[in-house]
């Protein structure tokens, strides 16, 4: 009979266990990786399409994405196109941390069924508990919001997490990004209040103040470098 209280037994036991568990986890992760990446990409496509009010199913999302998103490009803060970079693979959250001048700014051009063109801009920022992100679709002239989509990693259900709901996102439709020729991104403010300048605004979420503020900051921060690009659209 082995002495189960001995140090040697304990160490051998824990080593064997860690190796077995490690192997099992590595195997699970490796064998599911492709599916997970596919899901993540499909989810991103679904989110992009949702900003132009197109709801898709998991099965059809890839085809729909390629049908509606007719082109995509990466621009810099001067509005010039940067060649050789795939817009879909740009990590927006990473880019948002850089100086405006160094950022890679992806733009997706969407052609709707009626032939109208929309420009979709990805956003990334911080909520209360973790990252939040979204997509804003602008009309062909780059001034009016056509639709918006937001998502989050771990905001509180029923509070901050409400930014994903149509009740919140639909408020953005028709808001202006330019006021009298000045570039002023839409802001999110507490219900009943208004921002200090003339910019367009939407109501925040009661009980989700910090997340709402995060959305507002994200719009400000991520749309600012697109100023030159958007101005070039309206000319």
């Amino acid at each position, binding site marked *: 009979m082995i002495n*189960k*209280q001995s140090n040697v*037994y*304990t160490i051998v*036991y*824990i080593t064997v*266990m*860690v190796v077995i*568990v490690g192997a*099992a*986890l590595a195997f*699970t*992760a490796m064998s*599911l990786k492709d*599916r*997970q990446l596919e*899901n*993540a990409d*499909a*989810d991103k496509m679904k989110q992009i399409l949702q900003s132009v009010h197109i709801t898709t199913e*998991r099965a059809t999302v890839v085809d729909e994405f390629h049908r509606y998103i007719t082109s995509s490009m990466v621009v810099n803060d001067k509005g010039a196109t940067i060649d050789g970079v795939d817009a879909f693979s740009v990590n927006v959250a990473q880019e948002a941390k850089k100086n405006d001048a160094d950022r890679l700014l992806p733009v997706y051009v969407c052609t709707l069924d009626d032939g109208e063109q929309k420009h979709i801009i990805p956003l990334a920022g911080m909520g209360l*508990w973790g990252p939040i992100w979204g997509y804003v679709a602008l009309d062909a002239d780059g001034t009016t919001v056509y639709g918006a989509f937001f998502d989050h*990693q*771990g905001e*509180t*259900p*029923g*509070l901050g997490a409400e930014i994903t709901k149509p009740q919140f996102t639909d408020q953005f439709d028709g808001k202006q990004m330019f006021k009298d020729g000045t570039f002023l991104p839409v802001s999110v403010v507490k219900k009943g209040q208004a921002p200090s300048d003339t910019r367009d605004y939407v109501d925040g979420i*009661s*009980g989700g103040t910090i997340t709402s503020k995060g959305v507002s900051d994200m719009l400000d921060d991520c749309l600012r470098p697109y100023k030159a690009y958007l101005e070039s659209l309206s000319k």
Partner: protein
Amino acid sequence: MAEKTSNKEIFFNPFSKDNPVVVQVLGICSCLAVTAKLEPALVMGISVIAVLAFSNVIISLIRNTIPTNIRIIVQLVVVAALVIIVNQLLLAFAYDVSKQLSVFIGLIITNCILMGRLEAFAMGNKPWPSFLDGVGNGIGYTIILVIVGFFRELLGSGTLLGYQVVPQSFYDAGYANNGLMILPPMALIVVACIIWVHRSINKDLQEK
């Protein structure tokens, strides 16, 4: 212990008389976090049932080999590994649900019910009763989560599983959703109400 209680009792006791939430008062934290809406509460319950059942069986199978001085570590490793596998499977096959539950799946690891059942039951019983015990306790936990989620979503948002149930005419007549129901304190108050009702029915549970 396994000889004294029948498998039937092992399975059904946690539903009411020995409910992990309202009698043993375990797993209250996740009861707070995931019950603002009914759907996450349901999926969370199912995930806990799965993890609890399998970790109970695994621990029960290896219970005679575990060195006693590191048994908690061994239990934690088994639970953590299972939770990660569940999370990976959800990411691969139920991406939307896994996004909704986000951090809460990971938090199953810290759910007191798991450690409680492993330590109190699986360490001293055969695999089959342990499996029943895990499923039973998981269901007991899910029942409470679903009840709390039901009331919080109905009164807090006027919906159930995302569908509008409170008719528009109610709102027109001046009815308003109770925003407090969505906030965490109401989860505790609802749980307290359930305990109150539960103890009024089961008089033998009342403390002197």
